[in-house]
């Protein structure tokens, strides 16, 4: 019962052809549909539902919405009640309003991000099938991303004005959607301001993360790769294809993942994230990073801020 995993993300792109070249030829997703409004739907080879990425051409970059898949249709009624009781308005979406999905509910996180929950999406299957499958498909392009793994949302944080949308989101996700806190960064003179959190429903350290910044936005969405050698090869592919790399292959202290950060052609940050980190379980004690070790947590090898990592986002 409850939320299973991240289902899809809807990204705004400035140039659809350039975006498709990136998500298909660099990331290795395949196009599975285009709707009447021109939105394009894509999936990774190791995913079985119809899509995990929706691209919408627009005159700004960023994220329109993020959706999580729940296990049972009845979960939608239970969550609708819990979200409403918490004081957050919920809108019903009839079947098909989200392409190829059953009914859904939508609401706005305390941070202002549009989130949806759904229980059904059209099944297409993994590229390798389910009967005596090969470990990976031959035809996949680029870095051969396995699946959309998580997203990091930037949330307004202004302690002097008493604004902390990271903490508000974390409380909401924990109390209403039953997400578990995997890791957090605590800052400020008393070390009690929750400036960043990593939360999970699967057995990996995070399915969604919230980080404080001057305004709300999308920091990145991440695609899963198996291991470190895949990360290095992915960086080669990005260099070949002149993708703007933000942070070259690194290890995160937080979540223990190995990573590359880079930008899609509209400036939306992507990540290739490898390794399952550790077994995350509901009874696992959350991990805390202090302000002085914050950058060691983010970039374990250097322990330093890289570029404009927390001020550049869409």
């Amino acid at each position, binding site marked *: 019962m409850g939320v299973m995993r991240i289902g899809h993300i809807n990204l705004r792109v*400035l*140039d659809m052809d350039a975006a498709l070249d990136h998500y298909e030829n660099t990331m290795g997703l395949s196009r599975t549909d285009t709707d009447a409004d021109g939105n394009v739907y894509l999936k990774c080879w190791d995913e079985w539902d119809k899509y995990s990425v929706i691209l919408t051409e627009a*005159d*700004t*970059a*960023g994220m329109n919405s993020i959706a999580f898949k729940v296990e049972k249709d009845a979960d939608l009624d239970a969550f609708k009640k819990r979200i409403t009781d918490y004081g957050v308005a919920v809108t019903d979406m009839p079947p098909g309003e989200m392409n190829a999905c059953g009914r859904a509910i939508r609401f706005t996180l305390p941070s202002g991000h549009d989130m949806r929950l759904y229980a059904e999406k059209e099944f297409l299957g993994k590229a390798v099938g389910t009967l005596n499958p090969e470990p990976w498909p031959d035809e996949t392009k680029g870095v051969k991303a396995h699946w959309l793994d998580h997203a990091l949302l930037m949330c307004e*944080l*202004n*302690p*002097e004005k008493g604004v902390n949308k990271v903490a508000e989101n974390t409380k909401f996700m924990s109390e209403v959607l039953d997400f578990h806190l995997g890791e957090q*960064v605590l*800052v*400020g003179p008393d070390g009690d*301001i929750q*400036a*960043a959190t990593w939360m999970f429903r699967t057995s990996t350290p995070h399915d969604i993360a919230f*980080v*404080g*910044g*001057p305004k709300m936005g999308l920091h990145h969405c991440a695609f899963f790769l198996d291991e470190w050698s895949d990360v290095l090869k992915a960086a080669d592919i990005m260099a070949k294809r002149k993708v*703007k790399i*933000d942070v070259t292959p690194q290890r995160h202290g937080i979540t223990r993942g190995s990573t590359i950060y880079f*930008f*899609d*052609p*509209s*400036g*939306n*940050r992507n990540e290739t994230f490898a390794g399952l980190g550790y077994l995350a379980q509901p009874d696992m004690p959350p991990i805390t990073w202090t*302000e002085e070790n*914050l950058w060691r947590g983010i970039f374990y090898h250097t322990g330093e801020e890289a*570029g*404009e990592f*927390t*001020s*550049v*986002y*869409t």
Partner: protein
Amino acid sequence: MTKNVVTILDTGETYGCAREENLLDAMVRLGRKGIPSGCHGGGCGVCKIHIVDGTWRGKTMSREHVSSDEEARGIVLACRAYPSSDVTLKVLGKMKKAVCRERKYGLV
């Protein structure tokens, strides 16, 4: 290949930039500084500049950061501006923040 000369008024820095290159890529490639470097895709807005002299060709950039009025007045994102002559520019917005950052709470 002839390169146009780009002058950053704030720092006095000059560098060459071909017509096929955008103002930001050319600066970063040469290891020069001055214009804040972000997403290089017209989305994040940190490389906002005012082209006070010269001509350029612009590619689509986020309207969250540059209005069409601003674009008509030469206020653009450096990563989306391709010079067709020598160009003189001023850095807008987040330049100061990039040089002297003050953070009280780790991330903000």
